[in-house]
């Protein structure tokens, strides 16, 4: 049986984060949540994570900074930048694997998440 993937979900909106967690769990993922970049990085270091779902606009560190730090620590973990922000900086978009605008709907979110996980596993498999 295929083990369920672990997703680190980061957003400063507590309620939105809680709902997203429920959604992802319903989709069969294990979900870790963090309300800010600093705690997200700590969780990322400590736990095996298959993918990161990252909000951009957050107090303290923004999504771009968090993504950069994660890339340095574990470059193999795919990151999906999921933001309501309309004008993401180009360098941030280049760092992450994919970007998704909030409001595209849950199906799209799950689909894209699935996509980046599969892509990363494919590339890991080919490397091995």
């Amino acid at each position, binding site marked *: 049986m295929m083990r369920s993937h672990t997703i680190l979900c980061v957003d400063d909106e507590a309620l939105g984060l809680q709902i997203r967690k429920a*959604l992802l769990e319903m989709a069969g993922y294990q979900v870790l949540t963090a309300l800010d970049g600093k705690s997200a990085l700590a969780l990322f270091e400590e736990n095996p994570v298959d993918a990161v779902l990252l909000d951009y606009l957050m*107090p303290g560190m923004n999504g771009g900074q968090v993504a950069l730090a994660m890339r340095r620590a574990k470059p193999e973990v795919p990151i999906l930048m999921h933001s309501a922000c*309309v*004008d993401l900086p180009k360098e941030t978009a280049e760092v992450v694997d994919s970007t998704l605008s*909030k409001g595209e709907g849950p199906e799209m979110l799950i689909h894209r998440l699935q996509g980046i996980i599969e892509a990363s596993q494919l590339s890991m498999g080919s490397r091995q």
Partner: protein
Amino acid sequence: MNLREFQRVLKQAFFVPLLALVALAGVLLWQVRDAQQAQRWLDHSDRVSTRVAELERLIIDQETALRGFELTGDQTMLAPFKAASGPIDAHFDSIRRHVSDNPEQISNLVRVHDRYLLWLGFANNVLSTPNAAANAPLNHRGKELMDAVRDAMRTMSDTEDKIRSSRLENTLILERRELMVIIAGALLVGIALSIFSLTRLRQVSSAYQRSLDELQKRSNELYESREWLHTTLRSIGDAVMVCDANSNVQFMNPVSEELTGWPLDEAVNKPLRQVFHIIHEHTRKEAENPVEKVRRLNKVIGLANHTALISRNGTEYVIDDSAAPINDKSGNLIGIVLVFRDITDQKRAEAALIASEKLAVAGRLAASIAHEIHNPLDSVANLHYLLANESNAEKRAEYLSMAQQELKRTLQISRTLLNLYREPNAPVKVDLKELLESVLLLLHRRLDTQSVTVQHNFDGSFVVEGFPAELRQVFTNLITNAADATGINGKILIRMHGVPAEELHGSGVIVEILDSGPGIPHHAEQKLFQPFFTTKGEKGTGLGLWVSMGIVQKHGGTIRLKNSEDPDLHGAWVRVYLPAHTLATSSSRSTAHVG
């Protein structure tokens, strides 16, 4: 020549001829007296000659009587002899008195007298001698003596004649001299007076000419300066109108002719109210006659805001103007100068700027608002998906409640956004605490992104009258400014406190915003409230503070900006005073008074 000099000349013209004539009269008097004196001496000689002739006749009478007696021996013949002896003595005395001043005549008289006494001695001898008549030698002796008397008398008479003729000659000389003196004196005085009068008249006339020249020069200067002022006033870019103290138009420059629609020649002496018809732009009520206002206050006044001029053809201009009194030397009002400008375009431009700043505020907030709305909508979409796939009733209820919360948040944000634009027609009670919280709600994301922490202390109730949307714009602007100034990890403190009524303002609320930024640069202090001045480079429009000041001033409040002395928040310190009661109306937008 001044009046004093002129009076001096007048005095001279009176006294100098008078004195000259008096002197001339004096000289003439002296001459006449000399002539009279000479005449008296002439008369004197005549009297001496007459007396001498009479004496001679008396002596001859005596001799004749003596001869008669000698011839006849008749005693009666002697009557004239005796009768003459008394007058003869008297004549001698008289002549002696007359000639007492002349030694020659005195000695002549003494000789006559001596010879007469000799003859008289002889005569008395004859009278005492009987028959003397026949005595021829005696008669001969008598004749000799009498001849000597006559000879002496003739000498005296001749001498007197000589004296008289010399005196006559002297008299004639004097008369000639008198004539000469009269002619010469009259000529001299006449010429002198003429010259004197001529010089004085010349002095006066040249002074008069100088006065005339001066007057002409002054009049030219006056004309020039009048023309100069006239041209200046005519070519000035603002409209200028002058009216007299009775509010009648006296002068208009072309700009004011154009704005009022009245040509000067038609407007002259017309009442100002007719030519310069001004009303309140919004209430449409007749504005106060500036002449009356100037008369009342007697100082330069500016017209009220929103004054509109209705021109003769009905065109309406929003004008900005001032009126100043013209006073005479004693301070009486003799006229009024009105200077006004058509600011219709300026007002339109200002309105456009204000509108564009409002849009800029909205634009600046748009990203943050989109994010705010997107987040709950995303949650709602997720919940919808969950609900569709969840059969557990408990879970479903939980999801529905969550959806409720997220929708509520969305609505709150959209309402806040709407309130940013929706404005009541009249001022309403505004709870500043609520208002600031809603502003912070909209700015929340933006501030978070910049990692700016906002501390606030709104304990108590702070209610003022005003226009909430405009006030929201003000605080959005001020808080955004503070956040831009502090940068990443900055701090902002917002606090409020009520202020009691004081002499210069009514009771109200002061909202203070302090930040931890670098503060206001020294060079920017004076310009902060000017339109298009920005310290944010490309990012700023330079309209925020200008519009904010306009709004706050319209509410009857003020914004003060300086650098804070708080060590934790050492940046800018903004103090917004808003009165509890405002006189503002929805239309009474005013632009900031800078300076």
